[in-house]
Every structure is written in C-alpha cells, then in structure tokens.
C-alpha cells in the first residue's frame, strides 16, 4: 500500500502540472473547488490519477467539494485494492 505522503505528493504534482494550480494554495483543507477544479476537471483528474498511479477509481470517487485530505484518503483506499 502506497503511503499517504506519497499519494499526496502525486496528487499535488497532478494538480500543479495538469491544472496549473499554484502549489502555495494547496493545503490539507482546501477543496478541489477552492483549487479551481469544476466537476468536469475532477473527472479528468480521476483519469490522470488512474493512469499515473495505476488505479481503477470509479467516476464518482472524487467530487469538487472534497478536501485534499479527503481525496488522499480515497486514493489510499483505491491503491489498497
């Protein structure tokens, strides 16, 4: 199982590389909406995470109101299966 820190780093990198999110704005409690992602962007994020981390997330695994912390928890579950 991948560690929370590793998953968080991957998520941050995805947000900054693919969605041009300013790394300074990413905190544990910032929501994906806060970071500028709308519902379509979140589906896109799921595709990027699936491909980059070899996951099989459901289309509704993440949603815009989720915080970074909550998203990392979902990724941990996904990487455990």
């Amino acid at each position, binding site marked *: 199982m991948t560690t929370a820190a590793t998953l968080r780093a991957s998520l941050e990198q995805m947000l900054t590389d*693919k*969605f*041009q999110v300013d790394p300074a704005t990413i905190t544990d409690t910032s929501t994906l909406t806060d970071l500028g992602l709308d519902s*379509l962007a979140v*589906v*896109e994020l799921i*595709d990027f995470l*699936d491909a980059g981390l070899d996951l099989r997330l459901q289309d509704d695994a993440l949603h815009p109101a989720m915080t970074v912390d909550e998203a990392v928890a979902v990724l941990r579950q996904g990487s455990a299966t």
Partner: protein
Amino acid sequence: MTGPGSDQNVVVTGVGLVSAAGIGVDATWKGVLAGQSTARTHPDLAGLAVDFACEVPGFDPAAHLGANLARRMDRHSQLAFVAGDEALRMAGLRPQEWDGTRVGVVIGTAFGGVTTLEDQTLRLARGEPVSAHTVPMVAPNMLAGQLSLHWGARGPSFVACTACASGTTAIGLGAQLLRTGVCDIVVAGGSDAPVNRIITASFARMSALSPRRAAPELASRPFDAARDGFVLGEGAGVLVLERDGQAAARGARPLARIAGYGASADAHHVAAPHPQGSGLEQAMRAALAEAGATVADVDHVNAHATSTPKGDLVEAGLLARLFGDRASVTSTKGALGHTMGAAGAIEAALTVLAVTERTVPPTANLEHLDPRIELDVVSGAARPQPIALALSNSSGFGGQNAVLALSPC
C-alpha cells in the same frame, strides 16, 4: 439611412488570422501575397488515398492558451481564440473593460469538434475512458460559447453552420446584430480544423479532393485548366465589427466597411452547385442591393473557387456574365487550401486587407487559365489595385451561399 441614432454603417476595426501560411495577420497576408501553396504531406493521413493537407505550422495551443484551457478545447476553438485575440488587440478593445452585455459573438464552423470526436471514438473502441470534456469540445455551438466565456461577451452568441459558407454567414449575421442595434460590438468569423482521417477519407470517397499525392504543393490550383479537386485546410479568421459612429467615438481606426450581405439556397442538389450558379447570383445581388450598388460598381472578387473542376467553372461563368473582365478575381484557396467553415471569414479578412493595402493577392498555382474561363484572374504576382467595391463569395455543400460586399472607409 445614416446619421445619429440610425447609424447603419458597419465597419471592421480589427482582423485576426491563423492559417497554413502562419499564425497572425502578417504571416498569412505575406504568405498569400507570395502565391505559394501551403499544402504538404500530413503524417496523420498516412496510408489514405489523399495524404496531404494545409496545416497551420507550429501551432502550440498550450503556449497561447495555457495547458489547462488548451486541453479542454478542440483545435478549431483553439485556432479561433488566437485569431480572435489578435483581432481584439488590433481593434484596441480590452474585454476586461467593455460592457459585455453589448458584445456579440457569431462564429462559423462546418465541422465543429470532429477531430476530438474521432479521437474519443477510437479511445472508446480500445476500451479506454473517454474524456469528460468530449461533449463541450465536440458540440458545434461551443465554439461561440467558449469565446463568449473567455472574453466575458454576454450579448447574443451563436455558431453559424452553412458548410463552406459558414464564416461568411457569421460575419453577415454579425453585421445585422449591429444594424438592428442589438449589439455595439460583434466578434465575427469562422474556424475549422477538419484535417483528420475520417473527414479526409470521406471527402476523398466523394472525389472532392485533389489526388496529387506526388506533388501536394501543386494540388490546389483554382481556375487552372489542370485542377482536379480541392485541398483540405484548417484555420481561423475573425473580424471585430462595430457601427461606424461607435468606432469613431472611441477613436478606433476603421479598416473597411461591410457594405452588404446576401444569402441564399440553391435548392438544387446536396453537393453539386446549380449549373448556372443562380443561388450564388441571388446572394451576390442581395449583397449589392444592401450596399446600394450595382454589378457595375464591383472591381474585385475574392472567389469561392476551391479548385474543383465543376465548382470553379460554374462560379467563373457567373462572374464572367456579371462582370466580364472589369473586376479582378482571385482565389486565395490556391495558397491556403479549403478551410471549410473558416474559409469565408479568412477570405473576408483577406479582402479587407486587399482594400486597405490596395493589393490583390495572386491565385497560387494558376499556370494555364481554363480556356473556358473568361475572367481577369490575378496570378503569378500580387497586383496593386485601388478597390472601390469588393465581393467575397462563399458557397457550401447543401447549396448554401453567402456573399459579403466590402468597401474602403
């Protein structure tokens, strides 16, 4: 009827172009004046019966739009953004400062996001997930929707779709939004990026494309005796339109006047033009009537002429009947290929430049004028000519015709 409160004069205050001759008005105008074809073998078309096209060279969408926005847009929208931003810059307009409720966006496209649809269909066939952005990238209306969103233009926003006449239709309808007072500014034009396997293969099956695989640079040759079909191209042309008084009030420099617009349908055949070009003639006469002019006033025509054996002959016959050799004629598709829904807008922009620069670009690859064509077609080199009234002709599959009359300010 002119004067304060009833200002019917619509002028062009900005132009933007992205074409196979280059990105920007200067690169495109220079390329068209040089009279060189931009058709090249295209790697995406390898193995097809026709494997060449006119592609915009070195277009890096992420550099223009940022990677995030670029990824969410089909190429035809990306091209329109770049052309539109250039047109607004030339007009001296800043979207951050305008009253968006008075700004309309009318853009033409024949194919919309067809390249994205092809890509995503192939992903689906391979069992891969399709992009969540597929629908907003493919739906034709999104071209105008995306531009309105980007610029905060909150007036009427729609896409004109009349096949190869779409760009001309969009500019004509945009001018009407100004004449009726609905808008104060209209960003109008056309964009298409149909250079992909499905569209190329489909046009090839219709025998519409030139099959000159060995010499693509000689394939697009409007009015030439050896023409054998058009060359598919991509690009975007955008004009900023305003009422004359409005433009003058903000100190903008008008480039040319949209003197008239006419549109018609052949109601004759799904693809073939009417043998006498009667629909196109009707549209030309309507544009002249709106301009308060007659055929005798026309001294230049940017022809639709796509380099097909039949289409060029029909249009040339009509032009000869109306103008004889009194009007200079050019087809810029020799240089740029046929850019479908963008063609009319690119050609309207080039006609604006012909008017302002007093120069008619040559028809690339016109070596031996078809002996059945009795027109003064400009070929070889650009020709200096002060223009009093020009027409820009467009005809589309489905028999849809649109014509703009343009004059100096």
